[in-house]
């Protein structure tokens, strides 16, 4: 109380007060610097680990892919993991077939679902419930998706049930919530006045959606779908129970067992033979390149979308 009275009655000495305000105590300053450094270090840790992973895969993978160059992509997989020898074609084809089939199932279904949520359901209780469920479904472990397709689809079909299509179904379950969520985000970014203008011209909601809303959001939708594709291409767990364990190339998703790059990495990583481990690194490099390619295209597209929408 007294200090307040004193300062109000007479001009207080200004200079010591000012220095108090402008200098931060050493303890506070040190704490600030330490915490900022820790933040920087957490970035550095992840950067270093990421670099280590990529560098190991690149160097170890490159040595086998390069030394076996054309055969790596053109020959089937060696029957015995112990023997050296080229060939990862069966797995590359398997990954392509399963991922493409899964995309053909999940992307149209997912886009349709997102259109319903954003253009019809909006904030109704049903739409909100579906939105919540799609978030929940995105968190379902991929191995559970595999078990589900095994029980639901493979078991009733017996030995014939193990094929590329069953694997694709499991991957599609994994992709569906990702596609729904990313597509809905993109649809939400389309300005409402575009819809209003189209409706005012007499177009129905379906026509508006197909000719105005979706084209406007197209590159964003494609980029979200590509991210889902990259994710599916790298997944292993859903395929263990569903796709079988082939070593020969099989282009047909509907009959005969198949394999995938991820499964080959998993199977060979468990072996202790150096030849098997080399094969795993080679498959890992191939898979990473595939996944990065999808992601790169997706990023380029979403960059374009961001430019279009502003």
């Amino acid at each position: 109380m007294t200090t307040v009275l004193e300062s109000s009655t007479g001009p207080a000495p200004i200079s010591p007060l000012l220095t108090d305000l402008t200098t931060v105590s050493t303890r506070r300053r040190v704490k600030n610097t330490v915490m900022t450094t820790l933040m920087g270090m957490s970035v550095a840790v992840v950067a270093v680990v990421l670099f280590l992973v990529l560098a190991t895969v690149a160097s170890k993978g490159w040595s086998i892919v390069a030394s076996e160059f054309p055969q790596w992509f053109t020959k089937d997989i060696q029957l015995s993991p112990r023997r050296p020898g080229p060939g990862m074609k069966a797995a590359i084809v398997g990954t392509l077939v399963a991922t493409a089939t899964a995309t053909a199932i999940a992307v149209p279904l997912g886009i349709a679902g997102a259109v319903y949520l954003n253009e019809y359901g909006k904030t109704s209780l049903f739409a909100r419930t579906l939105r919540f469920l799609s978030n929940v479904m995105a968190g379902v472990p991929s191995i559970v998706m595999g078990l589900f397709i095994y029980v639901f689809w493979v078991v009733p079909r017996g030995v014939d049930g193990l094929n590329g299509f069953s694997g694709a179904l499991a991957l599609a379950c994994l992709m569906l919530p990702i596609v729904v969520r990313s597509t809905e985000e993109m649809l939400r970014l389309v300005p409402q006045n575009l819809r209003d203008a189209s409706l005012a011209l007499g177009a129905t909601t379906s026509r508006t959606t197909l000719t105005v809303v979706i084209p406007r959001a197209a590159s964003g939708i494609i980029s979200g779908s590509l991210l889902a594709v990259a994710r599916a291409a790298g997944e292993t767990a859903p395929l263990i129970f569903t796709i079988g364990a082939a070593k020969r190339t099989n282009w047909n998703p509907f009959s005969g067992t198949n394999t995938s790059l991820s499964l080959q990495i998993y199977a060979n990583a468990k072996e202790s033979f150096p030849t098997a481990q080399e094969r795993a690194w080679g498959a890992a490099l191939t898979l990473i390149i595939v996944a990065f390619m999808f992601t790169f295209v997706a990023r380029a597209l979403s960059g374009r979308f961001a430019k279009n929408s502003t």
Partner: protein
Amino acid sequence: MAVTLDDLKGNKQLADRTFRGATLMGGTAIAVILGLISWTIASKSSLAFRTEGLSFFTERRWAPADDVFGALSFIYGTAVTALIAVVLAVPVSLGIALFTTHVAPSWLKRPLVAMTDLVAVVPSVVFGLWGIIFLAPKLVPVFTKLSSWSDGIPILGSIFGKASAGRTFMTAGLILALMIIPIITSISREVILTCPPTDSDGALALGATRWEMITGAVLTHSAGGIVGAVMLGLGRAMGETIAAALVIGSSPAITANLFSSGDSLPSVIAFEWGEATSDTKRSALIAMGLTLFLMTLLVNFIANYVVNRAMKRMRGES
């Protein structure tokens, strides 16, 4: 033939309704698939529950040869590895998120976001491969040193026990931490960005240092969303299969020693599936899948609830 306006209207309405129905199908597919997952997995695991009863959850022994199928040690392993992952990943993720939003110069922000996204793109089996062949052998001396240092200290001594191999709970926790860093980072980053600049600028204007501004304004504002992000990371860590299966060691154990080999629900399903020929064993593995499904469902329910509530509150305020 002349087409009247009414004809057109009728056709248009039919097309519109068909389209609406088709999109509705896409939306409902999610609910249907989730329902089918619960139903089929529950029905296939009933055989295991009939033979084991509720002791399936409390039995520690996993001895398929004696028809004893206990899930307890796998549940324990799942919980322990996921907890290690979260404990390691949360400070790092928050650090990256805060560095990106509040410390980094603007030209560095995009590359930082791209880097965390890149971690998410690396397939989990590649992390597993790296973990089993590259990381695990290098960790053995680190574990041994840590355990000899902490020897005799009450709690640390038992947590950092004798290291038998490179494939341990801790190794799995480390790899899982790396894999959940992107999701925790990106959600925290978005939540942190919703903090109104008036709050953070106000704190700075009152003379707070950057760190005081972060703890006082930013973190108090975004606490709810960050908790949700952490829960989503926890769910992801519990369900992650292949990476954990490769590095956890695949020998079921319940021990406080984090440097011991163990096993977890998803990894035992993946690992033993090929050898599971009897109906009971398959059913027991599917029952483990059901357990895992329910555990992640619970965590995700809570996480989504927390994130939604936090997001809604923040939008309402700003």
